[in-house]
């Protein structure tokens, strides 16, 4: 089964992912691609506390993820792959690694230098550029916080500045 969801979300493993998307996609594995977390076993423990027993986790660096992505896509596991920012997903997707996949922008919150695009998506000019470059890697890019929510297209995200 291919990776059932690629998602950019600052919160990584959290309620919307585990409950909201989990109830629809029935994942058996959550893969977190994050340089900091991959090097921090104690923080990994904090993230997996309380996860349903049927879901196991992998924490990987971008390099590790790029080396293993084909195995993950071919695996019978139903995986959700998370990054906390667009830049990390872009590094994973470079070289058309994720060609044909949909990248879900699920949660990037307000911070200095970011402007509001959606209630749950705030983007800086740098991040807007990263989204465009992500789309050039032959992936579809859209924003949707939960499965039942409206999907917003890349055009809406990159042209959303008021």
């Amino acid at each position: 089964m291919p990776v059932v969801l690629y998602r950019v979300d600052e919160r990584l493993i959290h309620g919307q992912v585990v409950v909201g998307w989990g109830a629809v996609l029935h994942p058996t594995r959550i893969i977190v691609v994050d340089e900091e977390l991959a090097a921090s076993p104690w923080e990994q423990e904090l993230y997996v506390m309380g996860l349903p027993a049927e879901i196991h986790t992998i924490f990987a660096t971008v390099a590790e993820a790029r080396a293993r992505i084909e195995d993950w896509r071919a695996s019978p596991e139903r995986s959700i792959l998370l990054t906390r920012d667009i830049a990390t997903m872009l590094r994973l997707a470079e070289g058309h690694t994720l060609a044909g996949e949909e990248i879900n922008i699920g949660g990037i919150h307000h911070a200095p230098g970011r402007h509001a695009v959606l209630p749950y998506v705030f983007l800086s000019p740098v991040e807007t550029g990263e989204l465009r470059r992500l789309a050039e890697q032959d992936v579809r890019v859209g924003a949707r916080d939960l499965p039942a929510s409206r999907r917003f297209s890349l055009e809406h995200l990159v042209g959303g500045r008021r």
Partner: protein
Amino acid sequence: MSERPVVRGLLVAHGTFAEGMADAVARIAGLEPGALSTLSNTGLSPEALAREIAAVLDDGPWIVFTDMPVGSCAFTARRLCHGRRDVAVVTGVNLPMLLDFVVNRSMPLRELTSRLVEKGHQAILCSPDAEKGTEDAGRAVPRG
């Protein structure tokens, strides 16, 4: 001999859950000023939520209650409180647990957290009894 400080609570949750729970506690048991603070994670990045929690948590003892055992509230609280012996994080909060907290805040932190976890569990009942499949459910103490 100095008097042991009473435990204070911080409830961190999604949406208006924390505010609503604190309101319910105040209506049922009353709330002393400063006994239970509340925070919502709505619109906050993990970093912003961590700053908000850190701004509340001065010297303990504190219990940080969160709604879900997994997720941004629980993770942020656990990460921030990692290594602090004067703070405990309790997840899956419910109203009976919070009511027990506000009337037992003078207990030592570790004893209190153990008690609250038990009280929280005890409050979850099903009628009719899901295991027995009978109508005599809803009993915290089974019949002998």
